[in-house]
């Protein structure tokens, strides 16, 4: 009896092992590097779980690597070591170099065969194209918006929100806040971070790099004027903290803590801001000092060309799922990042968010004036250098015109070097 039981048991274990092995063999694993933490990561994990439930033969392994810059750095080190991921989130102005060097695969054939393409907004279609080929599919698209702490404005004597369209109007409001509430440790405005600096230059009728010709525009009069105004908030008007200049995240933190009246930031910060400020949060379009124009930011998902074909197929399936109306609606409602799919607005989750979270749709309403930015390889270099130069200008160490003229020359030289 005992031997028989043993044999039956062994047979059962063997059958189980065989089926598990077969399942493991059939399953395709996709490593996915991303940049989302907190609530955003929770929403991403929900999307992954839903995808895996409908695609049991694919396992997505999401890994939080850090911010966009840290992803680029880690990717650089991982690629030569053969330890790169299969899919990766890449910021929209930084993927050009990776596409140029053949690291990212051309997704055009996948996109052309995918009905998703017809449903993507034009900006979402455009953002992934580099040199005529599709390298990333947008996931978290954004524009910068103006966030206002209504309570601070009331305490500073504004019964109604003043117009915040021109640079002069913003300076005036920030000064009034600073004068009335400065002693309570409240600042009128947060010094703009790099994404919104680019946005404010565009709102002044210029750009850093021409988006059609890739020509450097750092030394055009309107770009210089925009930088002069931004620097003046810190060094002349003293309505923005110098801490925000040396630590670009600090402005956002101070706004969440109710210590700043106005901040320009990505619409992707909407969720966090709304949770922190609730009904005191107001969201306005970006300033239109000289015409209205805002940059499209955020990131898209690309697939590494080094991945095996079946992994590439599985990764694209996931990318397509992440851009579907259901996934996109969940992502939009949780984070505030813009919908990229025309059908997203029809989803109940999205409708609920629009009705219950006033201001979440401001970025969508700005889409008429939203533009993708130039992304030639030298943009990565330019963005890295810009931090130091911005510090020198905002802290009053160097003259804005002199810095921007020199910066433009250096950027042109770098563009020439990289194009060789």
């Amino acid at each position: 009896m005992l031997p028989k039981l043993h044999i039956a048991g062994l047979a059962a274990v063997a059958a189980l092992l065989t089926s598990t092995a077969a399942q493991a063999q059939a399953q395709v694993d996709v490593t996915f590097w991303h940049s989302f933490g907190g609530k955003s990561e929770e929403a991403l994990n929900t999307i992954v779980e839903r995808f895996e439930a409908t695609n049991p033969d694919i396992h997505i392994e999401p890994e939080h690597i850090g911010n966009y810059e840290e992803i680029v750095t880690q990717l650089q080190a991982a690629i030569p070591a053969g330890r790169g991921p299969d899919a990766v989130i890449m910021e929209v102005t930084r993927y050009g170099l990776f596409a140029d060097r053949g690291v990212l695969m051309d997704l055009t054939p996948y996109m052309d065969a995918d009905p998703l393409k017809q449903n993507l907004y034009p900006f979402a279609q455009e953002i992934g194209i580099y040199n005529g080929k599709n390298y990333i599919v947008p996931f978290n698209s954004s524009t910068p918006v103006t966030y206002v702490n209504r309570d601070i404005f009331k305490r500073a004597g504004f019964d109604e929100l003043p117009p915040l369209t021109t640079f002069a109007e913003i300076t005036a409001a920030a000064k009034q806040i600073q004068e009335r509430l400065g002693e309570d440790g409240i600042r009128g405005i947060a010094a703009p971070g790099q994404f919104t600096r680019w946005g404010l230059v565009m709102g002044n009728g210029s750009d850093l790099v021409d988006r059609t010709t890739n020509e450097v525009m750092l030394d055009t009069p309107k770009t210089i004027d925009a930088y002069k105004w931004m620097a003046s908030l810190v060094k002349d008007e003293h309505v923005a903290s110098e801490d925000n200049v040396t630590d670009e995240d600090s402005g956002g933190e101070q706004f969440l803590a109710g210590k700043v009246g106005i901040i320009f930031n990505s619409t992707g910060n909407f969720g966090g801001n709304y949770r922190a400020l609730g009904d005191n949060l107001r969201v306005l379009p970006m300033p239109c000092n000289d015409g209205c124009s805002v940059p499209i930011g955020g990131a898209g998902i690309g697939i590494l060309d080094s991945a095996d074909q079946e992994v590439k197929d599985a990764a694209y399936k996931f990318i397509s799922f992440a851009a579907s109306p259901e996934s996109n609606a969940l992502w939009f409602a949780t984070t505030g990042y813009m919908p990229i799919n025309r059908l997203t607005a029809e989803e109940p989750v999205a409708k609920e968010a629009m009705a219950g979270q006033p201001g979440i749709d401001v970025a969508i309403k700005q889409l008429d004036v939203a533009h993708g930015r130039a992304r030639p390889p030298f943009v990565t270099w330019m963005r890295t250098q810009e931090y130091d130069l911005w510090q020198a200008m905002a802290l009053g160490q160097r003259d804005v015109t002199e810095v921007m003229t020199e910066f433009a020359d250096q950027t042109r030289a770098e563009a020439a070097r990289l194009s060789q």
Partner: protein
Amino acid sequence: MPRLTPYLLVAPLIAFIAVFTYIPIVTSLDLSFREWDFLSPEKPWVGLANYRQLFASHSFWQAVWVTAVFVVISVPIRLGLALAVANLLLRETRGSRILRAALFLPSVTSTVSIAVVFSWVFATDVGLANAALEAVGLPRLRWLQDPTLALAVIIIVNTWKQLGYDIIIYIAGLQAIPTELYDAASVDGGRRFHVFRRVTVPLVMPTTYFLLVVSVIEAFQIFAIVDVMTHGGPAGATNMLVVELYKIGFSLFDIGQGSALAVLLFVLLVALAIFKARVLGRRVHYEA
């Protein structure tokens, strides 16, 4: 077989050092003569072009200057302070043991955590340092925005972090000095300062020499504190050589030029070590 035993015993360590030290040094040397961005399959030979670009770069020379200033100021402060504190904590009492442990604690604490905490302490608007100044009626300082102050903050934080290690090493060195020498000096009527200068300082010279070599190398290689607290700013005022190396290599994708800087730093440190051995090594007495 017995003849091979010693070689076999050291083989794992040799392999470890070769893989993690010598091979990277040689690879770095090779890469410094090539153009590479980590992504391209090709690494064309460019001769001395990376070195030429480096020598023509303003930010490289700024990093050299800032690092030199940092080393020249921070190392003597570290060693002087460590010797003075070690002297005070030499006696074996419960209080001195607690203080030694307290002072050593930063040495074993994560550098990044320390840098994050000190970033808050020295924040202009909400930092503890400015709150303390305002509490006694003094104006706020732009700790991390003023170029001079930012470097001073880096020196303060680095000294705070490293001091405990130096103190412990100095205490060990001081304890090795024979007490008879102090007794003899005392009989001869030597005052406290004279005894310190004529007996303690010369006899603790081997320890000072060791700490000097180690702290100069550490100072030249400072990275984490700067990267977290200032990213080399404001406007390059705390841009040390390794921060510049990281920026060139990992933000600007220029591995060739980054490797050239690494090679130059290596050569500089070796040259300094030889210089110290020639100039100071002769004055070091290992026996009383």
